[in-house]
């Protein structure tokens, strides 16, 4: 009986967040001249920009376009979902104050919205696979990596959504932080470059994004299965961040309606 209620609740949250994401997606592209084409153009611009300077930043990396593009789109997914989540509760104050809802749906909708646009990036990725002469079938491993990646991103998004309600400055802080993280994550340069910085610790091993991006790169671009330590690390990051973020969100969500 309890399990049934639980499943119905999850279903309700997913259904509602899908509708919210759809409406937001439509709203964002409304009146835009190129509309959904932007979802293709934006990552393409980034790709070409870095390919122009590949001799400087991407030296010695095999399959550089794929290496680069996977890093770009995965980080982009992380950045977009988390920064959208910061605003999602305040943006929907009209609903939250006037009807009893599952607040989780708003955060999940921010994730789903990014999943929509991620599809377009995956289409480009498929073309890149063909261009690089790598089997297009390698993409079948991506959903599994992406699944755990989503839970990680969702966990951070729950944190971000909660903090966004209480701390006005958090949006700015997060923007700066993600920019730094973008530079600190091996997206357009080789991952061993960081060890040249002579940090007292191995930064990559502390950076969850490094785990997910590396696993995706290795199975899609390089046809190999990652080290077990990387995979276990990714699963632990994904589940622990999700659980922690969810607990924080649950603890504070009943106060949201008074804060917005």
């Amino acid at each position, binding site marked *: 009986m309890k399990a049934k209620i639980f499943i119905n609740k999850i279903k309700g949250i997913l259904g509602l967040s899908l*509708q919210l994401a759809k409406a937001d997606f439509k709203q964002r592209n409304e009146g835009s001249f190129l509309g959904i084409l932007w979802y293709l153009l934006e990552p393409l611009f980034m790709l070409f920009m870095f390919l122009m300077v590949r001799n400087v930043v991407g030296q010695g990396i095999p399959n550089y376009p794929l290496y680069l593009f996977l890093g770009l789109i995965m980080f982009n997914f992380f950045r977009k979902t988390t920064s959208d989540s910061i605003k999602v509760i305040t943006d929907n104050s009209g609903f939250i104050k006037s009807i009893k809802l599952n607040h989780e749906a708003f955060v999940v909708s921010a994730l789903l919205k990014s999943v929509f646009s991620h599809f377009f990036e995956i289409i480009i990725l498929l073309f890149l696979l063909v261009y690089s002469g790598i089997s297009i079938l390698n993409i079948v491993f991506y959903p599994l990596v992406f699944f755990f990646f989503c839970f990680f991103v969702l966990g951070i998004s729950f944190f971000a959504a909660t903090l966004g309600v209480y701390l006005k400055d958090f949006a700015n802080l997060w923007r700066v932080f993600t920019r730094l993280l973008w530079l600190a994550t091996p997206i357009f340069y080789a991952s061993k470059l960081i060890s040249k910085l002579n940090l007292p610790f191995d930064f990559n091993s502390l950076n969850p994004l490094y785990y997910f991006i590396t696993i995706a790169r290795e199975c899609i671009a390089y046809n190999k299965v990652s080290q077990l330590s990387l995979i276990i690390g990714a699963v632990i990051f994904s589940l622990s961040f999700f659980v922690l973020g969810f607990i924080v969100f649950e603890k504070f969500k009943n106060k949201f309606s008074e804060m917005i």
Partner: protein
Amino acid sequence: MMKEKRIIVENLSKKFRIGAKKNRNALAQLVSFFSKNTEKDFWALKNISFSVKNGENIGIIGKNGSGKTTLLRTIAGIYEPDKAGIKVKGNLVYLSNLSNGLKPKLTVRDNIFLLGSITGLGQKDIKKKFNEIVDFAGLENFVYSKIHQLSSGMIQRLAFSISIYSLKHSNPDIILLDEPFSEGNDEEFSRKALNEIEELTKYERTAILVSHKIDLIKNCCNKAIWLDKGKIVKQGKADKVIEKYLKLTNKII
């Protein structure tokens, strides 16, 4: 036979932190520019107690800012009470004016789907009821218009229409209605809407209504509560409470 109690509210209090001004000298003002504003406690509800039995309809009246909406939101679980308890038996739906949740850049159609799913309708239910919702709101010719192109009266009608149809569909034991229609609707629609609300509050259903429309309370409710500054001034039979309330407000005018 005693009727079952649907809602029991006992010694309910609710406070908010609101901004306050202090007298300060210039230096303190400069320093406070960087610090947080001072706040003080504001008790929106103080020691409210009442109960609602099955099938009873209660109207809540009072001036603006007397705590009516806070009371409903606390019962609905949107706000957390600061003191004491609320017991609710059965499933409950709280609805207030949803018009500020509508997305101005989307079409009427898209908004019906969005608001419908927010108020708990499934996709299939919305498709089934779609024409009825549009007809009730009188927006047959505006299905593909954007919300920002509609008049404010049309927007109110749309929001009300969606709310009513999702309420009918979810068929809850208890409904809490917070100022279900705002001003600015024509006679015809107001009458239609009034009929719907009367229909909804009939029979075995329990309802709490907040409204400035005294006639609505008179028609739908058998009991009434008069709130002022977060306290109950009077509660009891609807006619008597309304009579007292009107006497006081007329005196002031």
